[in-house]
Each structure stands twice: as C-alpha cells, then as structure tokens.
C-alpha cells in the first residue's frame, strides 16, 4: 500500500499522534480506506484502537497529525460536523427515551422535519428488525435488541462513515455470529465506509476488507485478511492471527543449513537463517509415519471438529502446534513425525520483521499435498 494521495479515499490519516500525559496512546498512525470498505482495527487490549476511533470521531483531539474524511480535513471539527455515525461498546442508549425517540434523537437535534423523520425511522427500524419494539424503553430490551437500536440510530443518520467500538462484545457467542453477518450485510447494502474495532481476530478476519493490526499505538500491519494470514509482516502479526496462531521456533546453525535444536539432521532454511525465527501455521503441518521432523506429543486439546497437538521437537524444548481434523487422542510422549508445508515464514530476530524471499524449497521435511489425518 502506498500513501500517495487519492481524492477518492473515504478516510485518510497522516501521522496521527495522541498523548495522554506520559502515555503515547497513538504513536504516529497513518492509514487510508476506500469508500464502502469495511476496515477493522484489530489488536490486543490497550493498543490504542478505541483511542484511534475516538480521534476519528472527534471525541478526542489528536495531539498532532491530520484526519481527512471524505476528502475534507476534519482535524479541528467537532464530532457532529465530521459526517460520521457511531455505535458505542455500551450502546449509549438514552434510558429515558423510547426506542423510536432514541433512533431519531439526532434527526430531531438537527431539525429534520417530522414527516421526514418518521419515514427514516420506519426504514431504519425495518432494516434492523425493530419495527414492533418502537415504544419500549431500552431497559425493557434484551442485549441483542439494544444493540439493534444502537445500529438503527447509527444508520438513520445516513452518514457516509460509520464507526463501531467492539459493538458485539456484550453479546453471547451465538448472537455475536448472527450480528456479525447482519452488520456486514447492512454495511454492504448501504455502501457504508465502516471502521470497526475489535480484539477478536476471528471477527476481524470474517468481516473485514481491510485489517489494520495495531500494537502499542502504532500500525503493525495494514492489509486484507488474506494477505495478513498468508504473509504476516511481523512476528507479532504472525502470532496474533489464526486459531491457534502460528507457531514460532528459533533456528540454530547446523550442518548444511539452519536447523531446530534437537533435530540436527533436518535442514529447514539456508545457513544464514540461523538465529532467526521460523513460523509455521499449525493447520499446514501434517503428521506422518515415516518421514519428517521427529517430535514427541506434549499435549492434545480436543476442540470438536479438530484436535490441536503440541509437539516438542526432537530432543529439544521448542514446541510446534499441529492442527489435525477430528479426535486425535495421542498420549503424551508418543513419538511422531511432522511434515512441514512448502510455505514457511521467516522473521528477523532483532527487528521482528518478515524476511522476504528466502528459498524454502529445501529437501526433506516438507509435506507433499497428500491428505493429513491422525493415525
């Protein structure tokens, strides 16, 4: 992604910083998003996602940097003039107002005529399936229904950009999956540019067109879900994405190239990769009887459709996780062999950055494309 100016960008942030006393909540964030795209701000708790969203909304003033929304510099504008709507984590419904009054609160405040208001209320309520609850108070609604009121209040504004801060975190797992699909469908139908905050990588991967992975106030990687999965830019990105995430092991120098401690015979990378980190996705490793990296089972976690095995490499201490379909109740200590995939990821020890273009077609331990099952 280049940062060349593009007049059609819905969102463009340039070196946005936010300081709270001594804490740099945002340490220079730059990003841009196309109109109608679903952007997810992803990262662990405390990395600055909410701060970034609030700076975008104008609820916090950035310490420095510029914010352009729909081609306008809004850095100094109050929230109401930024052309955004927002769904808060706690929904922020007005407890003394009915559902209908909550939804049209902003239209009334902006002086939209009553007839227009009624029509837009009807549309928005129908879109989120609230038509029959308009007279209730928020306290008389379930969590999922309150969430829908917050959604309706956001879409009735017809702002081109919609911001959401962990909107699903208060719902149970089943409802969460349902709402994920609904929000995504709504966003596409209304062609909204969405900025959606979550700490749940599965949510991010399933909803986003563009994932902005954050860490300690900066952008770690800004890419499509597919790119983020296939080519994590840093060790942090590698260990944040996937269930379970990518396993990282340290390469050491061995005969004929870089090897893993405890398995000297199996060269995994060229000699210059010694000292760096090797990343392997658990779902791409195959258990095998004869050939491959020698390992021993250190634990097995049955997840229903699959089992995640923790395997200690050779005589060493490093662990690779392996995801195999179905139930695979291998007892601890069982010797196995692991066939690694063609695509390995290599990360620099000092910087943590991905090392591009290293020849990974070295001989033995790589799996061919045969089927992978538990023995």
């Amino acid at each position: 992604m280049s940062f060349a100016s593009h007049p059609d960008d819905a969102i463009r942030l340039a070196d946005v910083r936010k300081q709270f006393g001594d804490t740099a909540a945002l340490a220079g964030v730059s990003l841009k998003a196309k109109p109608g795209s679903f952007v997810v701000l992803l990262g662990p708790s405390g990395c600055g996602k909410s701060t970034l969203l609030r700076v975008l909304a104008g609820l916090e003033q950035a310490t420095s940097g510029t914010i352009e929304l729909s081609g306008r510099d809004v850095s100094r504008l109050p929230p109401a003039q930024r052309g955004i709507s927002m769904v808060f984590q706690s929904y922020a419904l007005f407890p003394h107002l009915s559902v209908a009054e909550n939804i049209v609160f902003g239209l009334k405040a902006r002086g939209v005529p009553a007839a227009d208001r009624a029509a837009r209320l009807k549309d928005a309520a129908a879109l989120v399936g609230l038509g029959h609850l308009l007279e209730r108070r928020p306290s008389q609604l379930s969590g999922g229904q309150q969430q829908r009121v917050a959604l309706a209040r956001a879409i009735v504004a017809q702002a081109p950009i919609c911001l959401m801060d962990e909107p699903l975190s208060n719902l149970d797992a089943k409802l969460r999956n349902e709402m994920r699909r609904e929000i995504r469908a709504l966003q596409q139908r209304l062609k909204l540019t969405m900025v959606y905050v979550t700490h749940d990588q599965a949510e991010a991967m399933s909803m986003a067109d563009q994932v902005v992975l954050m860490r300690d106030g900066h952008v770690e990687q800004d890419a499509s879900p597919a790119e983020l999965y296939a080519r994590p830019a840093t060790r942090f990105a590698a260990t944040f994405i996937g269930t379970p995430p990518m396993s990282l092991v340290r390469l050491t120098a061995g005969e004929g190239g870089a090897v893993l401690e405890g398995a000297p015979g199996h060269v995994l990378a060229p000699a210059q990769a010694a000292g760096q980190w090797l990343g392997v996705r658990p779902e791409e490793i195959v258990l095998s009887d004869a050939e491959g990296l020698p390992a021993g089972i250190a634990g097995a976690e049955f997840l229903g459709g699959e089992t995640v095995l923790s395997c200690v490499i050779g005589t060493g201490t490093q662990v690779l996780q392996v995801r195999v379909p179905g139930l695979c109740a291998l007892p601890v200590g069982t010797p196995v062999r692991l066939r690694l995939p063609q695509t390995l990821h290599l990360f620099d020890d000092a910087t943590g950055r991905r090392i591009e273009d290293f020849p990974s077609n070295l001989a033995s331990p790589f799996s061919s494309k045969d089927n992978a099952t538990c023995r």
Partner: protein
Amino acid sequence: MARAAGIGGSFGRERTTLHAWLMLAPAMILLVAFTHYPALATIWHSFFSTPKGARPARFIGAENYAVLADDPVFWLVLKNNLIYALGTVPLSIGIALAMALWVNGRIRGKAAMRMAYFVPTVLPMIAVANLWLFFYTPDYGLIDRMTRLLFGWGPTNWIGSQETALGAMMMVAIWKEAGFFMIFYLAALQAIPPVLHEAAAVEGASRFYTFRRVTLPLLGPTTLFIAVNAVINGFRLVDHIIVMTHGGPDNATALLLTYIYDVGFRYWDTALASALTVVLLLILCLLAAAQFLLMGRRTHYR
C-alpha cells in the same frame, strides 16, 4: 402425621409473627409516642379551648380556626411564608444545579470548589445566622462595603427595615441550602455515563439541547427529591430568623413556624398554636402530594 405437621406449621407461623412484632416494637413505640400520637393530639387539641388556671379545656369546635381567619397577623405570616417559599425553593434548586454543573465540568481545583460550596451545609444554622449578622451589619458589614464599592450606596439596615428584612432572610436560607442540594445534583450528574453525552455530541446535539433532552430528564428523580425537601424547608428552616430578627421588624419576617412558636410559647395560647400547626401540616401535605402527582408521573426512574 399430616395433622401434626399442620399444627406444627401453624404454631411456627404464630411464633414468626410474634418475633416480627417483637422486632418492630422498639421502632413502633418510638414512632407512636413521638410522632403519631403528638400529631393526632395536636389535631384533637385544636378543637378545644386553651386551659387556663382552674378552667379546663372544653370543646369549642372550629372556633380556633375562626379566630385565625380573623387574625391579620396570621394572614401576614401566611403571605410572608408564601413569598419566602416561592423565593427560596426555585432559587436554591437553580443555584444548586448551576453549581453542580459547573463543579462537575472540567475545571481546575474541582475538589476545593466542591468543599467551598459544601461548607454552608456543614455549619449549624445558628453559626450561619451569626455570620450573616456580621455580613448585614450596617455601614461596615460585608454587604454594605460591597454595595458602597460597586454602586456607591450609603449604609443600609438590611435586617432592620421592613422592605429588605424578608429578602435578607431568604438570602441566608438559599446560601445554606444550595450547597446541600448541590451535593445531590453532583452525585446524580456523576451517575450519568459520560458516553451518553458523547453519543449526543456525535448525533449533532448542541450543549443546550443535550442538557434539555438528556441531562435534565436523567436528573428528574433527584430534582423531585430536592424539590420536596426544599418546599418542606421553605416552611421549616426558620432558626436564623429566630436568631436574627425574632420575626421583626413588625412581623416583616414572621413565618408560620415562628408564629406558632410565639403563639404557643410566648403567649401560651396552645390551642391556637395547635390550630396553626394543623394549617401548616395541611399546606405541606397538599404541596407534597401535588409535587408527586405533577412531577412524579413525568419522572424517569432508572
């Protein structure tokens, strides 16, 4: 078996009932002895004459009330008290709300400000009265110095002249009460999640609109509580008047309660004082009922 259980059950229930009465007894006895009985006795006495020497009290029907209706001082006192209530109630509530909004905002030295506003509440009313006696001192009191500095006015006898005395008493009451009510408003304001104001800001509501449509309705229950208390205080809070003016000059600051005190304990006409007390009780009951009916229905309880 079944019968035994039944008997045991009813015996158990009786014991529980007995326990309940025993537990209630101390509070009940105190309430009856010091609240319910005196209230009823007062109403009872108001229909009798005042016993004097060898002459015992006798039933005279509504004669005490008739005397009141013919008493010009009673009507003056009633008028004074209405002015006093109409002035102190809205002003103390309004000032309390304004101070709470101000202190709740992002200002420097918030804690010190809150303390400063709360001090009048901590002071006993007698101390407050003495403080204000100094403020109102003609010529070198605080008020006169300020009016001289600001407007070049001469000395004014604030609590000694008919025109200003009642206003001066109202000032003291407002000063005393506003800080107390502010604490309630402050607590209520802090219970409103800030995210509601953020949501309103995103929705394009101005600060005034947000105040009118979000903050004020959410303060509803607090306002009702404060209003009921303020109205009651509008008839009850007279300590400073007793200390500062004794109801004078020429009854200009006499209120229902000070008049009851005078009639009952200076002229020893206890029957008339009882009738006056019944009038005061009636007024308070009517006002409280009206407030709950008018405001209660429109108040949102969380």
